[in-house]
């Protein structure tokens, strides 16, 4: 079972990377989202997937049942999810801004940064 998780996570990571390799900003963004989902699952996996009992202490008890799931990775993933959400939102805003300013999100047409002060301009102008 564990290996099934490992395999699924690996496929997820590969798909995320494949999308990040695109030249389209939004697709890259999707790739980041998929890859970060994969990484979150890795954290979950690293805490060992062993139980379906929530790590909530039942009323009347003082300590968590030993059968409960590992709470620490859950807390870590929560943090990671939120951070991932923030980053994805920001990059989405960036993409929107780029679209409004430049009119494209295709990497082949986005070159304003490296055209700035490039030493190769003279040659690039040549066909």
């Amino acid at each position, binding site marked *: 079972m564990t290996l099934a998780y490992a395999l*699924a996570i690996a496929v997820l990571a590969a798909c995320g990377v*494949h999308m990040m390799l695109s030249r389209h900003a939004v697709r890259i963004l999707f790739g980041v989202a998929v890859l970060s989902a994969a990484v979150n699952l890795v954290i*979950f996996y690293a805490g060992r997937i062993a139980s379906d009992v929530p790590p909530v202490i039942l009323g009347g008890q003082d300590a968590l049942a030993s059968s409960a799931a590992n709470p620490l990775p859950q*807390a870590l993933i929560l943090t990671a999810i939120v951070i*991932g959400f923030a980053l994805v939102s920001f990059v989405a805003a*960036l993409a929107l801004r780029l679209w409004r300013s430049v009119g494209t999100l295709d990497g082949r047409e986005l070159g304003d940064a490296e055209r700035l002060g490039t030493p190769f301009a003279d040659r690039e102008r040549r066909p």
Partner: protein
Amino acid sequence: MLFAAVFAGFPAALLARFLAARVPHPGWVCALVPAALFAAFAAMGAGLGEAALVERLEWVPALGVGLGFRLDGFSLLFCLLITGIGALVCVYSGAYFAEKPRDKGASFLALVLLFMAAMLGTVLSDNLVGLYVFWELTSLVSFLLIGFDSHQVAARKAALQSLVVTAGGGLCLFGAILLIGSAMGTFSLSEIAARGGELTASPLAPAILVLLCLGAFTKSAQVPFHFWLPNAMQAPTPASAYLHSATMVKLGVYLLARFDQAFAGMPAFGTTLVVFGTATLLVGGLRALMQSGFKGILAQSTVGSLGLLVLLIGLGGEAAALATVGFILAHALYKAALFFCAGNAIHATGRTQVTQMSGLGPRLPLTAAAAALAAVSMAGLAPMIGFVAKELVFEAQLADAAGALAIALVVVGNAAFGMIALLSAVDPFWKRRDAPSEIKHRETPGLVLGPLVLAGLGLLFGLMPGLVAQTLIVPAASALHGAPIEASIYLWHGFTPMLALSAGVVALGVVLYLAWPRVHWRLGEWPPLVALLGDRGYYAVFDGILSLAERSTRMLQNGDQRRYTATVVAATVALVLAGLLLAAPGFAIDLDASALHPAPLAVLAFIVAGALAAARTRSLLAAMVSVGIVGFGSALVFLVNGAPDLALTQFSVEVLVVVILTALLLRLPLNPVPTRTRGERRFDAVLAAGFGLVVFVALAAMTAVPFDPRLSAFFAAASYPEAFGRNVVNVILVDFRAIDTLGEISVVCFAALGAWSLLRRRTGSGGAK
């Protein structure tokens, strides 16, 4: 005392920059500093005898670096030359810049004083690192002086060339110094000289030798680095006189001389110096034949002279030491004088070529006289110090039992000096061409003091060598030799083999002089020779490196986002593979026996399908939905594995991501044209698969690692009794690891704020379409 002497120059330079623009006769005022230092060194030298004056100061003891200053006979010679000529250069510069903007003259004088201090530091340093510090400073000041007329392209180019060559050599020297430190455990020159056996026995000795020679050869313009020095004549004449003839370029020689004792046990050292010195001597002489610029000719002769000096250091024995010292002294006196004279002639006529000057003698009489005297010395004729020095050179050669060929080569080289001497003393001043050159500036006291004093000293020391023999030459030679030398120096030795060689030199020199007008332009335009002897090689290397740089940069930083990401992913995968191969940690999997639960399996399949669909679809909207599947599936994974908090959060976040992404996609075309070719996509698939494999291997191997539940056990036990919360996950978030959460909400805050600002309405006009 030595400290004061070395460091006096720095504040003096600073002061000069401000004062020189404001006082009358700034040259004379500034000359007070080197003059005073000259006096001080003379006084110190008088009491020196065979001993050395040593002062030490800790600097960076943690690195074994101190500022040790050591004054012995050899450094005394240099110190006197530096300060003495320095004083004259100051005077001369004052006059030279008299009609230029005062700021310019002030800057120049400041640089001269700075340079003087750096030179003193170099020749006085006993610690190699300290020496290197000052050494680099001289390169730097030289750079600033060569490019002093910075609006001229040629000046900038020459400055850069000299810097690249000398600083490059400096780095070699630096390497040598570090190797020495590693081999010997000390940076002290005197200690290294004393423990030379250890040095040559070290396995690093050959590397040290090579690096050291590279450092010295670049500085002293030895073949194959001879090209920069003549180009450096772009500097104002006083700088040429000071740095590029009399003092700085001799630093390489100085360094080699200092290591002569240490490398005594290594014959390769001497051989190398002789070979390169001879080659430089000949190249300098030959290139002098090819030139017609006044300063250029002199510069070429300087190259030759430096070659001769290196050659002399390569020879063994007392005679060689005497010859080295004697020639250093003689050369400094006549070459600086000649440069001053050349400067006067150029300054007066505004022309730079010897062939463009004529009949200056009557109108620059003192200059002409000084030039004549200096030229006699340079030609090695009695009764000048140059004659004495040349006799010493031949004596050293004969004493070393150098082969006939070597002696012949030296004769040829010296003949070239003779030719140059004649050329510089006769042609501009006494030769009559069509019309005498026009004179724009007349001689002033400042302009003639330097040449007259130097030429006069050449005559004085030639007539009365005793004045300098026992006070300067012999102590210096002894210091160089490492043992006291008993010698007396006379102008007239009687009829010796050396005298015969001298006669040969003179005769050949005259022949060359007569041939020069016909030869120099033909040689100068003969491409193979120019290519061989010029700076073609330098530019080939320089441009080669730059073009390599350009190609590598165009390849790596080519502006294509995908290429960047692909390289990074490939590098990551390669790193992991390399690391696994090198570390060979072994690979174990614990195939757990627990049954496959269908529900989680189905959810996993659901996620995988979503991810694959997202990666494959072209439509952005479909991709968004597929990415949503992944997020939603993760939530389900959390849900069925005992993580309700996570599931809820993941689900909520997924919803909000959808809310935001739909707003983004609202503005975009949903089916953008493909941005990757089919081939690129396949390549990317391979990369992605590699990355996935890395993840899989890491996760699979984790099954064989036992889990340490310490942290979770603590949280499970402490959550309610100590932190008063039943939801352990939330207790971790707000209490056990609250600082993580604080950081996390900071990220949210900054991200939202960043987005808020990014998407703010345009204020004002302008910007993109």
